[in-house]
């Protein structure tokens, strides 16, 4: 019995496909229309509205809030200024990732953390001996992602008193709807963040305002090509952007059943988030050791050679057919006739017209620029298509940070 989000009264009538999935126990529209492509192009071409309320949200408060966060997170949260947001993973003592999310500094000694999994006990227990409190505010906040090239223009109309041109990438500000102050104005937080790799924002508000904000956005957005977008479109966008998905591209070390299922930040392309110089944090010693010794895995992109793919299909007298939706079926990756890893997420990229994958490969057997092979099934028979190892970030438009 999945739980409706605060936007459900608005999303449900729009969900013509009637295709829903559960996300952390909440109902999330897989797609609104019967095919996802227009929703995907809304993200890349106009603007899309995505209900991201199911994210876990925690508030960390108190004089030692920053000490607590610095103890837990791999990045240096002391450098997160008021109004700044940082993406960071957090690890266990062995330096294996538990989860990843964002830390936003709302004001001095007050932070908001987003997470994919429940982390209350982990954060609270890490606060023992510190003057900091951690509260689960997941159900106190509705969240809406406004993503795509037109997102800024739409939000300028929704939040006319806010200078959105001044809001830089990974910054947030407190804002109010409406041109003039009135008791009916809605207070919300807007952060320039998202899970699409495009220009985009996320709005954080009290659930009681969720429907009103949705309605205002839909009304403004009508002139900017706005569409509600579901998880299917979002999944394609995040693979193009090379963004990790827990339980798909990696398994939380808290959930792993065997040690081999765990990953370190270095192994997931998040070495840049492991600030080994900032002082103690959970997992630091293990990560220093891993850096010295070298990692077992690396996280890469894989671009399937279209000609190779086409010839495999034409051998069966078929045109190349690839699933339109992103797939989470693990695919073996080979080099020198030996399996060197697997693709954890793969999709046809509608904008790049390429078949792309996010992969974990044995380090250093394969490096970006190397040729590999990836398993492709044609008419129930397994084949290997040629592929190229690339950076996981396939799509990175200038507007994202501009």
């Amino acid at each position, binding site marked *: *019995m*999945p*739980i409706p989000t605060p936007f459900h009264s608005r999303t449900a009538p729009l969900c013509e496909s009637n295709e829903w999935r*559960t996300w*952390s*126990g*909440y109902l999330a529209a897989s797609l609104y229309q019967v095919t996802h492509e227009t929703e995907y192009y809304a993200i890349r071409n106009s603007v899309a509205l995505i209900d991201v309320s199911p994210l876990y949200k925690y508030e960390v408060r108190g004089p030692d809030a920053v000490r607590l966060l610095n103890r837990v997170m791999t990045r240096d949260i002391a450098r997160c200024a008021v109004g700044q947001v940082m993406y960071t993973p957090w690890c266990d003592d062995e330096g294996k990732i538990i989860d990843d999310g964002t830390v936003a500094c709302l004001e001095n000694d007050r932070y908001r953390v987003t997470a994919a999994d*429940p*982390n*209350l*006990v*982990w954060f*609270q227990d890490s606060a023992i001996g510190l003057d900091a409190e951690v509260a*689960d505010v997941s159900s106190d906040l509705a969240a809406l992602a406004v993503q795509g090239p037109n997102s800024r223009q739409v939000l300028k109309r929704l939040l006319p008193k806010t200078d959105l041109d001044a809001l830089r990438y990974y910054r947030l500000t407190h804002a109010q709807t409406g041109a003039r102050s009135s008791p009916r104005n809605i207070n919300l937080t807007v952060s320039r963040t998202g899970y699409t790799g495009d220009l985009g924002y996320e709005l954080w508000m009290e659930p009681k305002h969720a429907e009103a904000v949705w309605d205002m956005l839909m009304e403004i957005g009508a002139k900017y090509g706005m569409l509600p977008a579901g998880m299917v479109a979002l999944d394609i966008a995040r693979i193009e952007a090379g963004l990790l998905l827990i339980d798909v591209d990696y398994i939380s070390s*808290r*959930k792993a*059943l065997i*040690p081999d299922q765990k990953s370190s930040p270095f192994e997931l392309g998040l070495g840049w988030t492991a600030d080994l110089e900032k002082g103690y944090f959970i997992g630091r010693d293990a990560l220093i050791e891993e850096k010295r010794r070298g990692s077992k895995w690396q996280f890469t992109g894989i671009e399937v050679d279209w000609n190779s793919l086409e010839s495999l299909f034409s051998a069966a007298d078929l045109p190349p057919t690839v699933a339109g939706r992103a797939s989470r079926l693990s695919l073996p990756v080979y080099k020198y006739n030996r399996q060197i890893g697997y693709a954890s997420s793969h999709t046809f990229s509608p904008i790049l017209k390429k078949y792309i994958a996010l992969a974990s490969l044995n380090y250093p057997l394969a490096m970006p620029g190397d040729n590999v092979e990836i398993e492709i099934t044609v008419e129930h028979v397994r084949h290997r298509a040629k592929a190229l190892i690339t950076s996981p970030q396939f799509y990175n438009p200038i507007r994202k940070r501009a």
Partner: protein
Amino acid sequence: MPDLRLYENYDAIVIGGGHNGLVTSAYLAKAGLKVLVLEQRHVLGGASSTEEIFPGYKFSVFSYVVSLLRPEIIRELDLPKHGLAILPLESTLTPLPGGDFLYRDADHYRTIQEISRFSPRDADAYEDYSRTMYFMAKAVKYILGIQPPDPTSLNPNDLAGLYRLARHFLNLPEDQLHTLVRLMTMSSADFLERWFESEPLMGTLSASGIIGTFLGPRSPGTAYVLLHHYMGEIDGNFRSWGYAKGGTGGISQAIAGAARSSGVEIRLNSPVSEVVVKNGRAVGVALRDGKEIAAKVIVSSLDPNQTFLKLVDPNILPVDLVSSVRKYVYRGSSGKVNLALDAAPNLVCLDMRSGDGVPQSKTALRGAISISPSVDYIERAYDQAKYGDFSQRPYIDIIIPSMIDPGMAPPGKHVMSCFVQYAAYSLEKGSWEQRREAFGDAVVDTLCEYIPNLKDIIVYRQVLTPYDIEQSIGLTEGNIFQGELSLSQLFFLRPAPGYANYRTPVKGYYQCGSATHPGGGISGAPGRLAALRILKDLR
């Protein structure tokens, strides 16, 4: 006139037609032996039986759910072909005094949400606890499937077994080894407190640590029994808790069907008075009516009190065994109240919260209902019974089989099975004959606090005290597991050191009941392992 039966000859005779005896008989017959099962009662199944006690109402009289029936037994004996159907029993409802409740089921996120009403931390810790128990069950599963090696023996088989065992445990990751030691030594309440803080959750989880023992949730050693809840989860999709169609007698009937199809002969109303021993070797059995039946192998599925002290002359047994068996702890601690109901019970807590997104009464009534509002409640129930009494406010585990399996009661009517703990076997005041109904009243009064319409809808009440369990199905002191499942009575100590290999000092005489490794519950594992031992010895 000569008794013709005297000339009857079997390869093996199994004493007792409970589920383990039947499993042993089926495995022996499958291997080609001519097998006879002798059951003293008029129904098969021992504690795993279904009887129509009141016209139209079928009760799983004693045991009521199935947790651990080994999947390999289901496959090897082809039990589904013989009618076995285990239906899911997925939810647990813990009604609280005051009208609130805790509801947990297979809907992970709803369960988490329900728990977080009592403690957000507990909701978060719930998954970690389940994972820890998964690892523990995985670690311990290995020993459930092997014949316990004797640590004091120099026999190469025992030594090899001990070596494999040591290697298995030493290969566990450090943190799992630590948790395992805690699990073996702590009380279930203390163990649970490592994760949880909310009373309804801890009370209900801790209850599974005390079932069948005369110990409270704060008694050390009870944590280990918690693990039994999780054993089923590591067998692929096999469910950890289920309800057998037709009641637990349905399981016995399926095993009996499999046994018969392999040629086993089953005789009811055939109590055995002794095992005939000649020159240190078992050669047959004598029935209470005087008849004797010969067999090369005699297997007792009864408890050690019967197997070693009643069926054979203890004087022919080694003194250390006799002394161990006499000190073996039974201490029945539970009773059973079976109710035939004219209508569905109305739980006050479900009325109060219906329509606010919580379980509709229908689904909640299809699962277990646990009267275990807190650890203190259960510990207090233990205090009340500790010195030879029964609890005025007992821990009660309820299922309503007719909600899941409509054939158990006439249409629209229900049977309600209440497992009740604590009830001491030996009463300080009076006898169970005198106090049986007072015990039944305490149970019904407790239930009425949560089910106000209960008294109005009871059409028949069957009250079984530990004494009744002993008298009817021969479980000494009414212990449902044929002896407490405490660590001191498990593995190579079950039922006695040196005799955990299903053999007895009498050649050709074996044990296969719940008093042997891996112990009680409807697992069938002792029955299967005993059969494998016997077949190996015969080879």
